[in-house]
């Protein structure tokens, strides 16, 4: 396909550059309002271009579409190469969508003087994250992968809570250590590619790296190296402890993006790197990963019950729900029946990621709404909020129910598909995964009950004001997304039909 405009580059760099401009222009008095509108306009423009890409996208193809290739560091075989397929497009759209919500709701969350830098950081972060999804060159991916952490680091560092230094360092060290292993693995693959003379030239193209012939031992080492990088991001048990801390300390917008997008990069990395590059090792270690996922689901579900910090609770719930993603991805290796049904696991994982983006984003927004009014995240400081904030209570209830996987909301679709797939591997997997149905209700609705229900006993609660128009707008958008995805997920599934099927073929086809 030949498109005259480098749409993907525009989607990546337009927000980044406008973000940079906003930061530079922040000092100029009088421009403040204009800059705010600029940010929103840029965001809407990006969403429009993305929508155009979605419109033009062929869901039944697995090849990279809208591809761009430019030489970057030709001596090392590194290219600036972009493209979208059925996995990256929904996630990129999710990124832009959630960023828009954050921008909408930001004025209620941060001080007016900080609003422009806040916007700028989010725009930059959005661009870089989109870059992660669009990159088709391993090194470019790695660069974006690392670069997107910087705005997040700044964000938590600047607007975070009391314990932000500990949290940021934990977060950054965890993820950097993980990604170092990824870099080593990518370099190793690169040299294998050269030595194998597969192409005869140096290359980091992901597509080439996916088709190398590797011995089983090599695969196993590479598997663990790459798994570590992505497992930290997902995060899988037991490398999850950075997430609750980071979420607790991050400002609302940061939490939203962290939960909605950053975690997804882990899952996306597994689909893009781990599965196609080292399928044999994946098959060999599938049981291990599934067990870890189930531990994440059950153990973390239990841990979430006893949290008394709302953000921590939601963070733990994120870990548990992301456990479903890894379960879905790796359950496909143990399917006994026809392999063509394995696509359901991949589809389920993707849908679960998208939907978890919406839901956890929504829940964090809810906490943000409460926090901006009472400046506390402790569950015990609330009670009876539903009396004074009925509209908010309705939205919060919807997100809470989506979080427990109520059919008709997006939360159900992914979990349903993954549970269906997991049974094909083993009934026990299904049983343990389904335990989250109970635990999810326990922690989510227990929190809801303690925060929202009951009589108003505190003066602070009695004086709460219900949602403002900006908050309402954000919640309505999110609600629409959650319901549409829940009631009719098929369009999204068809968008990634080709990619998902091809991945399954690539990974399991040889068996």
């Amino acid at each position, binding site marked *: 396909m030949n498109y005259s405009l480098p749409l993907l580059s525009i989607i990546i760099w337009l927000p980044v550059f406008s973000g940079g401009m906003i930061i530079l222009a922040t000092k100029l008095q009088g421009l403040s309002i204009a800059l705010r509108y600029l940010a929103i306009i840029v965001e809407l423009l990006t969403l429009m271009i993305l929508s155009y890409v979605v419109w033009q996208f062929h869901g039944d193809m697995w090849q990279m579409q809208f591809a761009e290739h430019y030489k970057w560091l030709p001596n090392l075989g590194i290219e600036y190469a972009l493209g979208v397929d059925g996995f990256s497009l929904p996630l990129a759209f999710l990124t832009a969508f959630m960023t828009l919500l954050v921008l909408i709701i930001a004025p209620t969350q941060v001080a007016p003087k900080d609003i422009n830098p806040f916007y700028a950081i989010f725009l930059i972060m959005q661009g870089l994250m989109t870059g992660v999804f669009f990159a088709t060159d391993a090194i470019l991916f790695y660069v974006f992968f690392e670069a997107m952490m910087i705005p997040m680091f700044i964000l938590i560092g600047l607007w975070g809570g009391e314990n932000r230094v500990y949290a940021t360092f*934990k977060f950054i060290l*965890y993820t950097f250590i993980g990604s170092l292993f990824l870099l080593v693995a990518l370099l190793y693959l690169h040299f294998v590619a050269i030595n194998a003379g597969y192409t005869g030239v140096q290359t980091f193209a992901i597509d080439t790296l996916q088709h190398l012939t590797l011995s089983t031992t090599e695969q196993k080492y590479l598997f663990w190296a790459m798994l570590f990088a992505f497992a930290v991001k997902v995060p899988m048990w*037991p490398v*999850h*402890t950075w997430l609750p801390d980071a979420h607790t300390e991050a400002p609302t917008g940061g939490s939203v993006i962290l939960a909605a997008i950053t975690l997804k990069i882990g899952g996306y990395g597994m689909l893009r790197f781990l599965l196609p590059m080292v399928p044999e090792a994946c098959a060999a270690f599938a049981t291990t990963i599934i067990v870890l996922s189930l531990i994440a689901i059950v*153990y973390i579900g*239990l*841990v979430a*019950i*006893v*949290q008394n910090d709302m953000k921590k609770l939601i963070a733990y719930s994120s870990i548990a729900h992301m456990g479903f993603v890894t379960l879905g991805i790796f359950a496909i290796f143990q399917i006994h*029946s026809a392999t*063509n*049904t*394995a*696509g*359901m*696991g991949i*589809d*389920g994982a993707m849908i679960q990621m998208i939907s978890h983006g919406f839901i956890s984003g929504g829940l964090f927004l809810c906490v943000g709404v409460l926090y901006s009014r009472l400046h506390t995240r402790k569950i015990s400081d609330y009670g*009876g909020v*539903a*009396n004074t904030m009925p509209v908010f209570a309705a939205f919060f209830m919807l997100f809470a*129910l989506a979080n*427990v996987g*109520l*059919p*008709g909301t997006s939360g*159900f*679709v992914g979990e*349903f*598909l993954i*549970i*269906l797939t*997991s*049974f*094909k591997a083993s*009934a026990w997997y*299904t*049983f343990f995964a*389904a*335990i989250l*149905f*109970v635990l*999810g*209700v*326990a922690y989510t*609705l*227990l929190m809801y*009950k303690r925060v*929202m*229900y*009951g*009589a108003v006993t505190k003066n602070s609660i009695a004086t709460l004001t219900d949602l403002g128009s900006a908050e309402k707008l954000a919640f309505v958008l999110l609600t629409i997304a959650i319901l549409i995805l829940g009631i*009719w*997920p*098929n369009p999204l*599934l*068809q968008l990634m*039909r080709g990619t998902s099927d091809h991945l399954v073929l690539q990974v399991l086809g040889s068996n």
Partner: protein
Amino acid sequence: MYDIKPLAIIIIISPLLGAIMTGLFGKALGKRNSHLIACGLMTISFAASCYLLYGFLQGKYQPWNRYLYTWANSGGINIGVGFLLDNLSVLMVAVVNFVSLMVHVYSIGYMHDDPGYQRFFCYISLFTFAMLTLVMANNFMQLFFGWEGVGVLSYLLIGFWFDRPSATFANLKAFLVNRVGDVGFIVAIAAVLNYTGSLDYTSVFAQASNIAANSNAINLICIGLFIGAAAKSAQIPLHVWLPDSMEGPTPISALIHAATMVTAGVFMIARMSPLFEYSEMALTIILIIGALTTFMMGLVAIVQTDIKRIIAYSTLSQLGYMVVALGASAYAAGILHLVTHAFFKSILFLAAGSVIIALHHEQDIMQMGNLRRYMPITFAAMLIGILSMIGLPGMAGFYSKDLIIETVAMSKVPGATFAYYIVLFSVFITAIYSFRLLFLVFYTDARMSQDIQQHLHESPKVITIPLLLLSIPAIISGGILISQVVHGFFGSAIFVLPQHDVISEFAVHDFSGALNMFLHSFTSLPVYFALAGGVAAWLCYIKLPDMPNRIIKFNSRLYLLLIDKFGFDKFNAVVIVPIVNSIANICSNFGDKTCIDGVVVNGSARVVVKTSGLLRRLQSGYLYNYTFMMIAGLFVILLWFFVLRKFG
């Protein structure tokens, strides 16, 4: 052949539309418009479903099974959203819509002064929508959708008065217990997909005998489904949520916790009869659990004093009957009892609500008495409900209950004999608690305060009219439906293996029309059991009022056990909850904070700090130390070259 797609869509969309309008624009519409819209749309839906039922009864319509759209297409499997309308679902739809409409109307009066008026109508319309989806589903995904939908709406409605701690406790408990059942349910659904490669009823049922070849598979599926049904239909030990759910507004108790949602489990098992038929093990479990529930919950009902809880326990007991019928493969009997129960139990609840409102939210029957003088219509309705429930020959409840008892007696499923004696004896218990309720509320001396007594009056028309309207089917529905049901009204919707087919056996040997069944009843045991119960209640509560206390003294252990509701709640509160809590605490504090964060994460940070503390000592700050190290390094490199040259 008429196309019934528009009808189906009208039936299902109307309540949804009502919910959306009252939910989103309730404030703008105002109370009056809100209930007009909600009730109006329900009426439309009800009318359509009546038309449909009439068509099916006339044989004008054939079972209809279509998909509306593809919900998801993944892994080569199409999961759709569509409807299956056959005799079973049409009957259910009509019942659900009728009760729901009555409850809608009743709520206009009952919820009149509530600040959450519009919200209430939104919820019950949405509930109706979910229930209809469940009933009309033609695949497992949609079944699960409706299943969860009614669960959530039940959660929201039990907690409707969310500022009451007891209500929010009860609704969370209800949802949690339902979710425990859902674990079984979803595992079963996954198993169905795994073994048949489809979630569509038709193709799954077509392969049922293939699955049956693998006895583990069919047992897993059926027991899983039954666990789901047991939670929703409140069977032991997952029944604990239902009595607590009485915290919700009374119309809800009538609609959800008597007539519709709790019977979803029964409906589901009947719908899945092609699967259950092949699993004798599951049938036995169902039979035993159902019988135990009938018996034990009936006993508990005898000692309760809260009017709604008495009815709740009686609901449990009646649900047990239905489940026993299912276990005996008399699915049609179970469904018939479901239908009659929906009518007479919603009367009981709505009449109880009428009493409660009249007494200014007093629910303790020890504070009532002699109400028949003040509230004749309520009394009449309650009386009809109770007579129907205890199975007075000729009433609706009689036919269904007698059918169940007869068929269980014929059943050859293991455990059937045991179940037969239990359900028979339960008739006696049913009569006791029913008449106890009736006597203590409507007879005996008035025990409420003077103040209330002076203002006692019959409830307004919006409350009494639904009661009267419901009384009609509570009397006649059984007689009308019995011969249809016995002669295979459900057709292909319910599948029974020949060796299990107790209903046709009954039809062939014992049945010759509703009237004969009525006449015949006086020669059979159940009627006398019921009569004995009634007499016992009369003795205890009217003739010899100190009798109960003497029995209690004589048998205080049993009494305490019953007051404790056999200790299920206590077991949960003392064993399950603390165990889960302490495991969760261990996971959180020891697992996460101490082990992972303390030892691994912060531990490695500490190791780095310690090591660098050691390394720091090397930094003496003296120039010559640094030069020394430099030269030493140079020396080592030279040595390396030397060694390479000499030995390399």
